[in-house]
């Protein structure tokens, strides 16, 4: 019995049917964590990419260091750090939020590299035209560079979304009740792991396929030349 749903171990099929609602509750947590984490990674990554191109050397170098640090330390370490060490300094965050922040931080290091490549791929003539029209650096990023970069980075960003989705089970170590964690708990109580774990595997497979198809569609519908933001 979990979340008011009792399991029925008569046959594997009834077992599967009886625990599906429980796993779906876990799935919503998984999806929420991935969505929030990825949104954070997209925003923070862009901020990092822009700061890294700052003309103020100290800002650029500090950002490069932070990004490198985030990228080179395991997600699990960052997660434990946020969850177990920060409370010692008076910062106690709910488990779910901790998980989202850890995912977002780690992946912002990856997305910032994608943004950086995307920005560097914009021809110099575009910058020069913007300068000749007296646009500021900020206006050039907002109106010229970022809109042209977006369609180019969608495929790579899509890969990172899928990767992050598959990494969400890590959050179970800080007590976030996502799908894999719930499947494990069901196994512990019924002594029957095969069905719940297989189901989690299949659900992840489906998620990944849907995600990839969605990104493919997005690639198709986005104008290749770029999307004006305003």
């Amino acid at each position, binding site marked *: 019995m979990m979340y008011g749903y009792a399991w029925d171990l008569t046959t594997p099929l009834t077992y599967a049917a009886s625990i599906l609602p429980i796993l779906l509750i876990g799935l919503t947590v998984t999806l929420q964590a991935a969505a929030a984490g990825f949104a954070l990674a997209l925003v923070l990554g862009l901020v990092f990419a822009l700061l890294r191109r700052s003309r103020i050397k100290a800002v650029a170098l500090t950002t490069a260091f932070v990004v490198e640090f985030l990228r080179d330390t395991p997600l699990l370490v960052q997660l434990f750090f946020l969850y177990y060490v920060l409370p010692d300094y008076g910062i106690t965050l709910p488990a779910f939020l901790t998980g989202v922040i850890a995912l977002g931080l780690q992946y912002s290091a990856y997305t910032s590299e994608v943004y950086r490549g995307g920005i560097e791929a914009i021809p110099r003539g575009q910058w*020069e035209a913007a*300068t*000749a*029209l007296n646009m500021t650096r900020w206006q050039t990023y907002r*109106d010229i560079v970022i809109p*042209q970069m977006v369609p180019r980075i969608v495929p790579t960003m899509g890969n990172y979304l899928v990767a992050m989705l598959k990494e969400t089970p890590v959050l179970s170590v800080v007590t976030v009740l996502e799908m894999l964690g719930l499947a494990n708990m069901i196994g512990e109580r019924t002594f029957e792991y095969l069905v719940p774990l297989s189901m989690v595997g299949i659900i992840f497979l489906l998620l990944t396929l849907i995600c990839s198809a969605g990104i493919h569609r997005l690639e198709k519908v986005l104008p290749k030349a770029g999307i004006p933001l305003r």
Partner: protein
Amino acid sequence: MNKVLAQQPDAASAAAAPVIEFRNVTKRFGALTVLDDFNFAVAPGEKVTLIGPSGSGKSTVLRILMTLEPFQEGQLTLAGIPYHEPNGKGPFRASDRHLHQIRSHVGMVFQSFNLFPHMSVLRNVTEAPAAVLGLSRAEAECRAIDLLRMVGLADKKDHYPAQLSGGQQQRVAIARALAMRPRVLLFDEPTSALDPQLVGEVLGVIRNLASEHDLTMLLVTHEMRFAREVSDRVCFFDKGRIVEEGEPERIFTAPAEPRTREFLQSVLG
């Protein structure tokens, strides 16, 4: 055409105050000195063409004026504004604000057009007037339509650059530059990237502009016949210096310097 272009101070003060003035400007790329003690002035409203061999530094002159390249020594002024500030920092030795002020007087048309591919023709021409000059969308569009009409492309306003020929793209680029109402317009080989049959339409637009008394134009071109036709003055440029300058008729028919003669022979055949 007058109403779509900026109103400029009249040419009475022309002789007294050049709109562009290079004084002893030296420009280096690392160990390579591209401009060496360069002196050059352009009067308001004057149409000046720079000709010269490849690599002689013609583009560099325009790029310095457009603040796309810094220079190391000497003074440069545009409409009386010095490029370097007394305590200016960075490669340009000027604050962003100061550069912004300089750029408000000058525009540039590039060899490769450099239109914004993700924006419609209309948006290409309205973007900067709206974002930089603070014009309302309606005002910016009104101005843009007038200019597009002038370059003969009003009917293409909703097209994207990729849907236009090179000649059409360059005409949009000219309209885009004019929309900022510069006092000085720079053209860096505006027809060099075009198929031969498209050169004429772009030159036609520039020719019309050249009949505009207020706009100061500085052109780099390999179209000698065109240079002869539209310029008040032609400067033959070699190795970072002006070797010879004068009225187009004289430069093309009776060049005084052997190097000018040699160059003209090589390009005119």
